[in-house]
């Protein structure tokens, strides 16, 4: 006997407020320096900056995996804490699947850790695999998957908890361009279908422009904001957009901002 699925509240993204956040590592390295941001619920925001600039540190602070030295991160107005907070999902640069588990059981892991019974969590994991187009590979093991499929499995694991905030840390950076573009499209489609706030860290200008509604451009370490740019592009995005003049104009703005921050 499992409890009937409780009627979920209308899904809505989380509002993320970053207030005067500074992170100094032991040893004195300043990773993030005085960042103020307010991300609207349900928005798709790209954090763009050079490799190693501190944008990943910022993402970890938002997830509550790390604490700011100064300032605060608020989720829906409450300070972020690992113990008690709205459902967040985090996708790492590498898929980081558990190699001893099938794809299905990997996707079900967050629910297992939350104490959801086996049958129920497997059903939800199967749905998540359908969402990312990996239903056929449910019984396979990570070692038998291609890089793109592993990343899909990692994405399914993130989606299985129906997160209201999805944090992605250069998730597709290690994939070939075709696979990356396909996953970018899928991520856009997912975002418009489940209404979740997405924060996407990347060092690729094209990827930031193609995916996001709003791109925050950072300087080299320590990460400071040089530009906060609203992307003037249609909501429906298709692959051909990448070659259009309107798109080039947007990437130009981001490129100039990156150059400006790279001193």
């Amino acid at each position, binding site marked *: 006997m499992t409890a009937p699925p409780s009627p979920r509240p209308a899904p809505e993204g989380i509002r993320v407020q970053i207030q005067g956040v500074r992170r100094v590592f032991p040893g004195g390295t300043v990773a993030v320096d005085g960042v103020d941001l307010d991300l609207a619920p349900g928005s798709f925001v790209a954090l763009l900056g050079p490799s190693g600039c501190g944008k990943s540190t910022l993402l*970890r602070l938002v*997830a*509550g*995996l790390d604490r700011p030295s100064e300032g605060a991160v608020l989720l829906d107005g409450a300070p972020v804490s*690992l*113990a008690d907070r709205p459902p*967040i999902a*985090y996708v*790492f640069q*590498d898929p*980081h699947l*558990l*190699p*001893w588990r099938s794809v299905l059981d990997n996707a079900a*892991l*967050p629910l*297992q*850790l*939350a104490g959801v019974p086996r049958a129920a969590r497997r059903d939800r994991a199967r749905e998540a695999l359908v969402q990312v187009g990996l239903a056929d590979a449910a019984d396979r*093991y*990570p*070692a038998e998957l291609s890089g793109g499929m592993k990343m899909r499995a990692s994405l399914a694991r993130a989606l299985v*908890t129906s997160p209201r905030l999805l944090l992605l840390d250069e998730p597709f950076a290690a994939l070939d361009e075709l696979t990356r573009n396909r996953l970018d499209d899928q991520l856009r489609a997912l975002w418009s279908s489940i209404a979740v706030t997405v924060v996407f860290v990347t060092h690729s200008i094209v990827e930031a422009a193609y995916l996001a509604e709003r791109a925050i451009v950072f300087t080299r370490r320590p990460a400071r904001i040089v530009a906060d740019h609203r992307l003037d592009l249609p909501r429906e995005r298709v692959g051909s957009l990448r070659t259009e003049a309107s798109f080039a104009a947007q990437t130009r703005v981001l490129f100039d901002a990156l150059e400006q921050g790279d001193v």
Partner: protein
Amino acid sequence: MRALRNLLPPLVALIILLALWESLTRALHIKAFELPPPSAIFLAAVKKPGPFLQAMGNTAKGALMGFGASAIFGVLAAVILASSRTLERALSPYTVFLQTVPIVAIAPLLVLWFGPGLRAITVSAFIVSVFPVIANTLAGLRSVEPALRDLFRLYGAGRAATLLQLSLPSALPSIVTGLRVASGLSVIGTIVGEFVAGFSEDGAGLGILILSDYRQLNTDRLFVSVLLAAALGLILFAAVNLLGVLLLRRWHPSEINPTP
């Protein structure tokens, strides 16, 4: 076909070696108690195999119990050490003691403490074989990917869930490596234990046979016992290896693409 081709060279080498050994001991008139020819060793084994097999069984019992204790207590000790930095820093140096203590030197102590027989023999096998289990398990537990630790923290996993679902499975390849080393060592520890701790309750092990044949200069029989002891270590090693392959074949790269 490929297995045959891999097996052929060592087999040919063995036959040549045995032939050389046989003909040289005969040609040079080497005394049988110094170095018996292979044929004499073979005859000694088949003439009366019963006592040898019984002794091998007794030694196997001591080795298996010592090895089993090493597997259980070794993994357990590593889990406890890994659970606290302070504990690990305080106790880790002393686990090395287990590695460096000369087992021959403390075997008499074991007899004093545990009495002659199987118990002292098992403890001897345990002391010799537990260190590689502790060291390898500890290394495995420490090498869990930080991102996966973050993932478990993010989803609110407790200590028990993190240990059972993440740390121990991550450490499994290292644990199997530790058990592989321990399997061979446990047979050595058993033989040494038998040298000192005398008869086990159910009769003599290979160590006892080796001692008595040495005193009577039955060198051919001595060789049989030595070969059986080596075979025992090999069997135990092969069993651990098989276990490792079965546990890891779906996921660990070293087992997915075994080197030919």
